[in-house]
């Protein structure tokens, strides 16, 4: 049996103000899957992602990425992250943002440059290579954040609401790229508020509420289990049952 892309066991995070964002959460994501994580604001999605990516220090529990303990260089080198917020280095040009990001993953100068150019082309930003990120429009910045997540050719790509607030064209582009990546073997963990997005893209979905997974399965399985006509109904019913 292949190593799961992500194995989370008993994960707990209580912030300094006493708020428990993750409450003994267990989650296993098989390698190669396209996994959707749904839940309301404050459910723990971003804390979970942060814990996997070394941005959040869990209070307890264990995380493994392809068999490597989260936080090790091997685990971090295996993950690509596109966060919900647009967080780009405003001092550098768009191309430099990508080149240096690739460098943080240990690539050589030539390969970093080559990948940066490829990433720019993939997201249609080649013409903006020399400007700084703040000079880009919001949609272009979103493309840049997405492109940056691909530079280390991650085996596990984590996307925190990548299509929030983007126009229809960009959403279609992102969907197309995600399908291509997944077909090539990249495991994808996607959080989204767009239920149709999860249903269209993900082969498995988990619903998270108050820091715990409350339901999990394919969209069809979950609809059948909860007798829901649509994924929107399902979402409401599962969260209502959980509360």
């Amino acid at each position: 049996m292949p190593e799961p892309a992500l194995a989370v066991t008993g994960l707990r995070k209580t912030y300094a103000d006493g708020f428990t964002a993750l409450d003994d959460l267990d989650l296993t994501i098989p390698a190669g899957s396209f996994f959707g994580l749904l839940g309301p604001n404050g459910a723990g999605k971003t804390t979970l992602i942060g814990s996997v990516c070394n941005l959040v220090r869990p209070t307890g529990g264990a995380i493994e990425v392809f068999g490597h303990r989260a936080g090790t260089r091997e685990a971090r080198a295996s993950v690509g992250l596109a966060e919900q917020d647009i967080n780009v280095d405003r001092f550098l040009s768009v191309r430099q943002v990508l080149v240096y990001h690739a460098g943080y993953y240990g690539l050589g100068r030539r390969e970093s440059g080559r990948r940066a150019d490829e990433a720019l082309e993939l997201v249609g930003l080649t013409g903006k290579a020399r400007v700084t990120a703040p000079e880009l429009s919001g949609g272009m910045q979103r493309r840049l954040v997405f492109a940056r997540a691909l530079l280390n050719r991650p085996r596990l790509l984590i996307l925190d609401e990548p299509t929030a607030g983007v126009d229809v064209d960009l959403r279609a582009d992102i969907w197309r790229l995600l399908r291509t990546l997944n077909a090539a073997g990249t495991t994808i963990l996607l959080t989204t508020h767009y239920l149709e997005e999860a249903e269209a893209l993900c082969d498995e979905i988990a619903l998270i509420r108050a820091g715990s997974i409350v339901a999990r399965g394919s969209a069809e399985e979950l609809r059948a289990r909860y007798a829901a006509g649509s994924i929107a109904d399902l979402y409401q019913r599962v969260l209502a049952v959980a509360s």
Partner: protein
Amino acid sequence: MSLLAPAPAITSFVPERAPFRWLLEREVLRYLRIWRYALVGPVLSTVLFVLVFGTVLSRHVDGLGGVGYGVFIVPGLVVQAVINVGYYNGTTSLYEARRDRYLHCVLASPLRWWEVDAALTLAAVVRGILVAGAVLVVAVPLTGIGVERPGFLLLAAPAILLVAAQFGIIAGAVAGSLDHVYSVESLVLLPLGFLGGIFYPLGTLPDGWRLLSELNPLFWLVQAGRTGFLGTADVPGWASLLVVWTLAAGLTAVSATMFARGARLQA
């Protein structure tokens, strides 16, 4: 190989080029891109001090132990410039990386905590050397100052640069808002500078003020710099060297602990 396909499984992370070198390069590139603010500004303001105080006032004010006033103030002004750019570097680099959250890219990458700390520190040290060097390029011909104790200066300079760099990094990690950043600059750095013995010998102060100066960390940095350049200062060279290296070690330990624990950097 296309970016649209995942990399092979990683059993052990072996970089082609060390991520530390990339981050250090990025940190240096960051301030080189804003060179007017980052380098020219601090150099110009320090040179103006040397010019106005050192050449104009030196005709009317005695220095220390027969040294002209213009020569007397140069070491302190260089130290102050180094401290200022260290602070600016830490706050503009680390604070803004935290505020704008692109620090997450660094934390999520295979860079180890001590590599991040070391890259930020070394970049600030390089910036301090650039600024100090540029100030001296102007101040040496202007005042005729030389280096009386080069060996001592070689021992003291790394500590002074390290204190400046770590102070900036700690400030950049702790600052919660731009108000914090600017208020430390005007409420802490500026008074410490004026009460740090840059412009006056300790013996000219009343007792209360003398004690205040001696409690000021900047005073010891200035004394160390002055001993290196002029061969003499208000306190023995060994004492200033001891205090400066103790400060450097202490701040380095604080900074390292913050990075190791992720304090103010990770949630």
